[in-house]
């Protein structure tokens, strides 16, 4: 299945990607404005289902890495990931045939679409996380054995850094972060590269469709004065974990990541209970009155209790009234090899046992509905 991205899709995708960002991932607003402008200028973006990709295709993941706080001030030039892609292609001696988002949650849902519009390449309907994670070894590409390198980074001046070989994604994560600081705190990337056959084995399918449908459901519920939270839950396969008011947020800086804890006091049916959420850019663990009720890699998403507008860990503060959604993680993140990288223990919660939320991740449901066999 191939479909063409419209302005309405972009509008919806930004909302869906914001919710799937689970509190982090950066604001999709800026990428939305850029992609919208490119479409208005007559450029086109086609989205391709994973099963339509030829085995010998060259698929490259592209996007931006760095600090969201930099991104809201030093807005992107826009074509940094394209410069990185060209450098990677030059190193490989082959042109890419398809692009794939690394992370559907947050800003990186939109950036590959802009690169696709500029480079006239199709984008795979899927990604490597199904949500947002703080580090790049946490995607299914790395987890299921796609080599991290060669990899390329580019900055606003198109200064280029190509890593021909690094041992693994965790090593690349460290080198790439260091380079990103020198690049002014944010950079465009192109990595990893993989064949069409490899992509089908490692991608989390249909997540662009999921994010668009999620955004459309929220927008149409708002228009019709229906409940946008119920609409979001129906599309994602999630459940309502809690409704409440933020009564405390504690942040601390740890190795470049905004770690912290927030406490919510229950409202409505949850009155009398307290929810505590630990986060590291993204929300990781939710405890209701001391009991763990959801844990990474399942998605813990804070949204405004009236509008379902996503609330990120950077803006969450005292007094906000929110609904907390629990969305089951994609099946690809629930295998033993994935949990070793993205389970609670990987984030330092050795005493938290991962108890999967019931239900099926929206993207997996779409894949099943479309009869796609995914491994």
């Amino acid at each position, binding site marked *: 299945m191939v479909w063409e991205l419209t302005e309405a899709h972009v509008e919806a995708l930004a909302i869906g990607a914001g919710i799937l960002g689970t509190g*982090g991932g950066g604001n999709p607003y*800026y990428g939305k404005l850029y992609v919208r402008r490119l479409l208005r200028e007559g450029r086109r973006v086609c989205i391709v289902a994973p099963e339509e990709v030829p085995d010998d295709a060259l698929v490259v993941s592209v996007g931006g890495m*760095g600090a969201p706080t930099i991104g809201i001030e030093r*807005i992107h030039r*826009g074509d940094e990931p394209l410069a990185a892609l060209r450098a990677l292609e030059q190193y490989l001696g082959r042109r890419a045939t398809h692009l794939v988002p690394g992370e559907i949650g947050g800003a990186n849902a939109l950036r590959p679409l802009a690169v696709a519009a500029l480079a006239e390449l199709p984008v795979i309907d899927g990604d490597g996380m199904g949500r947002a994670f703080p580090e790049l070894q946490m995607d299914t590409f790395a987890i299921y054995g796609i080599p991290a390198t060669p990899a390329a980074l580019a900055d*606003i001046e198109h200064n280029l850094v190509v890593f021909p070989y690094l041992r693994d994604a965790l090593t690349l994560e460290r080198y790439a972060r260091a380079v990103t600081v020198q690049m002014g705190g944010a950079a465009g990337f192109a990595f990893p590269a993989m064949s069409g056959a490899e992509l089908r084995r490692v991608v989390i399918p249909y997540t662009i469709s999921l994010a668009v449908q999620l955004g459309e459901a929220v927008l149409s519920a708002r228009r019709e004065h229906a409940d946008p939270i119920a609409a979001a839950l129906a599309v994602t396969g999630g459940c309502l974990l809690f409704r409440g008011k933020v009564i405390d947020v504690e942040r601390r800086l740890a190795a470049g990541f905004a770690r912290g804890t927030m406490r919510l006091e229950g*409202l409505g049916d949850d009155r009398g209970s307290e929810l505590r959420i630990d986060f590291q850019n993204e929300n990781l663990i939710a405890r209701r009155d001391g009991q763990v009720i959801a844990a990474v890699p399942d998605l813990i998403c804070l949204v405004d209790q009236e509008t379902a507008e996503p609330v990120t860990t950077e803006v969450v503060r005292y007094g906000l009234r929110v609904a907390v959604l629990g969305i089951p993680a994609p099946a690809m993140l629930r295998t033993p090899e994935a949990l070793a990288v993205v389970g609670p223990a990987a984030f330092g919660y050795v005493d938290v046992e991962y108890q999967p939320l019931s239900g099926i991740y929206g993207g997996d449901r779409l894949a099943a509905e479309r009869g796609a066999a995914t491994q």
Partner: protein
Amino acid sequence: MARLGIDVGGTNTDAVLLDRGEVIAWAKHPTTPDVSSGILAAVRDVLAQAPLAPPEIRAVMLGTTHFTNAVVQRRDLARIAVIRLGLPATASIPPLEDWPDDLRETVAELAVILPGGHQFDGREIAPLDWQALEQLAGELRRRGVGTAAVTAVFSPAVPTHEDAVAEFLTARVPGLRVTRSREIGRIGLLERENAAALNAALVPLAEQTVRAFQQALSELGLEAPLYLSQNDGTLMTAEFAAHYPVLTFASGPTNSMRGAAVLSGLRDAIVLDVGGTTTDGGALVSGFPREASFAVMIGGVRTNFRMPDVVSIGLGGGSLVGPDGSTVGPQSVGYRLSSEALVFGGSTLTASDIAVAAGRARFGDPSRVAHLPPSVVRRALATIDQRLTELVDSLKTTPAAVPVIVVGGGSVLVPDHLEGASEVVRPPHAAVANAIGAAIAQVSGEIDRIVSLEGQTREAALAAACADARRAAVAAGADPASVTIVEIEEIPIAYLPSNAVRVRVKAVGDLRGG
């Protein structure tokens, strides 16, 4: 040491005279289309009541929605040039990209992005392109552009490019007024640029309006300095306001909450401002309104002003009451309350009629609501109380009961006992809380920057930021001895392992000689 506070709202212009913090006279008059005659009438009224002569008034503070309304109604706006310094960065989103089409067409004469701006760590992104700036100056002269906004990447931390370009253009384009973005906004380029552009569009109106304010006051023999209130509840001089009118946005709700704090003597409380159509609720924390954390839209434009976190519900004195009393609002007779409500001889059942029938209020003609069935009155009261209780609850930050301060023309709707409230306080002069909030305002200084903790300790970095905020407050007119730091916010920069922290510090002090 008397102060005159004036609030120019959409409907009424209020004036209040304070002597050593005590209200000694107040007046409420209709706002007039020219603004000045309404101010003259209200001020004449208070001066006539007051036992003091105009020279004893040491400062005049004015809050106004005039400039917000100009943007919302798209009137009296100037044609502007929007200049961004950021290339090669920022090219993906040009200035004014997400503005409503009608506003962009009304104000935008020219929008450009040129090389310049800085990185978060202070390095230059690119040097300024003087040749391009010379061409730009020629273009501005040729098109007769009178007002411009300049925004450089990371100018809140490194202002040099913004300043250099503002000076360069002012010297080469006769009569050009330049708004520098760092004066009005914080980190967040698009939002700060939007605010600067709105400001530039308002500058000619602001110069004219401030002049008219000053003339009106001098006609009354008032020679005291004039200050305007800002969105954070602090003051700026009239001269500064003429250059930065956008800072008056949303000063109304802030003044009303600050006024409520002073009138009640409470520093931590919920404030309900009950009007004709809506009730606005907010929380006072240490005497200041709690701020909203989302981007604020003004006239359809995204900005990053700090606005009070106000929750509005459709319940006010003019709210329509359903025949059986089970619904109250959100529809309202609004300003026609004084002709349409039953107690005023009209034929519409409103929340005010219920308040009179139930004995919560005494105004109009009570005999005109005597026929209402007690069950309808009871049900309507229960509906009103439930909606107010829910509003208070949603604003609270702890489960404990808190004081609730009630102000505004529709305050009679609020019962003396409200669930979740430790007490319901109805301060005297609550009808002019806005003007009082303006009169008691202080002055502030604020900094917002990203600091690296490599090569300096966190304490040293914070101390430097606090010192700069204090200096900014003194520069804005604060008495140095009274300046205190009221807010320090540290936000680690996520995904960047260089130990960079975004620091915001705000210092507030009493007006010198006020």
